[in-house]
């Protein structure tokens, strides 16, 4: 018992007040668990929102300076895209747009056509994987329509549909497959066709496109990438998703800062809890500390008793908090939410570390009080 005497005394003191110790450990555990849960929830929610918004959409796009004009997919442009490591491999898709109108006799709806190579479209929209019915194929007269459009007009794979294309010509397509890209608006109004369909309609040459769409490894680098490309490829317009989704970004940001506020308050609550518990413990044990000091316990070792208490409470509380957080996250996975929470190990460890750090910080007062206590005060006052 001579070795680590301060720790052993700390442990004994904690055990002598088990209810008090358990309460504060529970307090820390709940606090840390909330901290981890809320932090992970917000991060995952944001990731999921961003993914929903731009995961299946172009993030940086080349287009003509004037709306409706073609942009030339020049060797220079191909070069710039191919040599930029920020571009996600295989996620470059030159596309041509055309508008059309579908009528089935009673109802009609406009349908925007996106023309391109299936393999390239997959790089942006991941169409093949999202075809839920029929086959993902874009041969000359194939069309892939969204599930909401198909439901509205009771279309199934193999059906023929006639469209009035922009400019007034009519063309007949075969519904090859029905896709679900996760957005009802997209599923209802957009369709994929072979790239030659809009090309012949618009009378463009093989290297002329409505847009060249690109996805990035890190979507939040889009503004920088766009700036670089504007400089490298003059004479075309480069647009990026962040500029077009300012509202979403503001929402994400304020969600992020409200999460920080919650986490800060949780930490403050933990700190106050530990600080008050330790302060009370230090006062309760004044008599014992005085006796120990009269017997020769040094100021430093006496002070360390409460430092150890903080480490024990903070350590056990934080560990229990991490366990509780994983339990909550496990429970959440059955909640039926549209996204799953992936707690980052680094964040979990950081939270636990912060818990212990806060515990240590809140032990400063009792530690100093204990270390300063003069044994004569206790001996004289009985």
């Amino acid at each position, binding site marked *: 018992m*001579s070795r680590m005497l301060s720790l052993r005394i700390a442990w004994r003191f904690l055990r002598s007040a088990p209810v008090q110790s358990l309460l504060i450990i529970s307090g820390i555990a709940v606090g840390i668990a909330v901290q981890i849960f809320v932090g992970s929830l917000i991060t995952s929610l944001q990731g999921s929102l961003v993914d929903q918004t731009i995961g299946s959409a172009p993030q940086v796009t080349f287009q003509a300076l004037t709306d409706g004009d073609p942009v030339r997919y020049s060797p220079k442009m191909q070069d710039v895209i191919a040599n930029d490591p920020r571009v996600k491999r295989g996620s470059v898709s030159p596309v041509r747009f055309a508008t059309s109108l579908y009528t089935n006799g009673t109802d009609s709806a406009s349908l925007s056509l996106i023309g391109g190579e299936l393999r390239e479209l997959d790089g942006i929209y991941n169409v093949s994987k999202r075809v839920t019915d029929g086959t993902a194929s874009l041969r000359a007269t194939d069309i892939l329509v969204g599930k909401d459009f198909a439901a509205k007009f009771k279309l199934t794979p193999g059906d023929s549909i006639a469209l009035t294309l922009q400019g007034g010509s009519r063309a007949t397509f075969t519904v090859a497959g029905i896709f679900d890209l996760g957005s009802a608006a997209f599923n209802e109004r957009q369709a994929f066709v072979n790239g030659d369909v809009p090309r012949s309609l618009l009378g463009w040459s093989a290297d002329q496109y409505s847009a060249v769409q690109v996805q990035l490894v890190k979507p939040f680098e889009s503004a920088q990438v766009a700036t670089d490309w504007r400089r490298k490829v003059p004479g075309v317009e480069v647009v990026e998703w962040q500029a077009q989704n300012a509202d979403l970004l503001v929402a994400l940001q304020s969600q992020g800062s409200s999460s920080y506020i919650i986490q800060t308050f949780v930490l403050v609550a933990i700190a106050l809890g530990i600080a008050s518990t330790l302060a009370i413990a230090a006062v309760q044990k004044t008599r014992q500390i005085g006796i120990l000091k009269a*017997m020769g316990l040094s100021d430093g070792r006496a002070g360390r008793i409460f430092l150890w208490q903080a480490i024990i409470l903070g350590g056990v509380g934080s560990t229990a908090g991490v366990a509780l957080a994983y339990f909550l996250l496990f429970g959440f996975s059955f909640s039926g939410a549209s996204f799953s929470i992936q707690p980052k190990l680094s964040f979990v460890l950081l939270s636990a570390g912060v818990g212990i750090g806060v515990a240590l910080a809140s032990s400063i007062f009792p530690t100093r009080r204990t270390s300063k206590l003069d044994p004569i005060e206790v001996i004289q006052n009985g």
Partner: protein
Amino acid sequence: MAEKLLVADSLDKVYGTGEGATHALRGVSFELNEGEFAAIVGQSGSGKSTLLNMVGLLDTPTAGEVRFRGRNAEALPRPELARMRNELIGFVFQFHYLLPEFSVFENVAMPAFIGGTLAPGEIQARAEEALALLGLEGLEGKNANQLSGGQKQRVAIARALMNRPALLLADEPTGNLDTVNTDLVYDLFRKISAETGTAFMIVTHDRGVAQRTDRILEVTDGRLVQDIRNDYARAT
């Protein structure tokens, strides 16, 4: 030729300042040899506890100095004073001051735990010896709270003996005990003193007890008014 254990030189102690100040000690001087068995007597409030706390390196005089084995206490840093209290001095107070969170064995062994120099086996042996000396065998594992008043005070004495101190200070150690227990405790003190060469300073109201020591220091109003050698021990 007896070695000098401690010297109290012109000790003054004033509590508080101005109007409300209490002059608890006025120019108290005496010397105590190694192994000496002394009593401090005097009326309540005369300054006995104040004197004992100063000799025990727990309190500091307002003027004058305490020299313990030649070292001036005032010149020593707090950690060194703590170390000397641990190694050289054993305290028994009027109230037992046991630690309720620890077992009887742990309470007795605590001074050795604090000292940190003895091997666990040695600590065990010494604690058992001290407990046996005080007739506390079999109570090692008990909690301090489970003991009677007399047992508690005996545990406190065993604890004070644990580090085989050069000086054992006892402030009215039998104040809460009946006559039978009081006699037992004093017989024990004498026995320990004879066996180990530990010096004793015992504060007591009890003239009968004081008569059985080698030396009686009498304090009145903060002054040492009498310092007499007693033949009792030598006579028996």
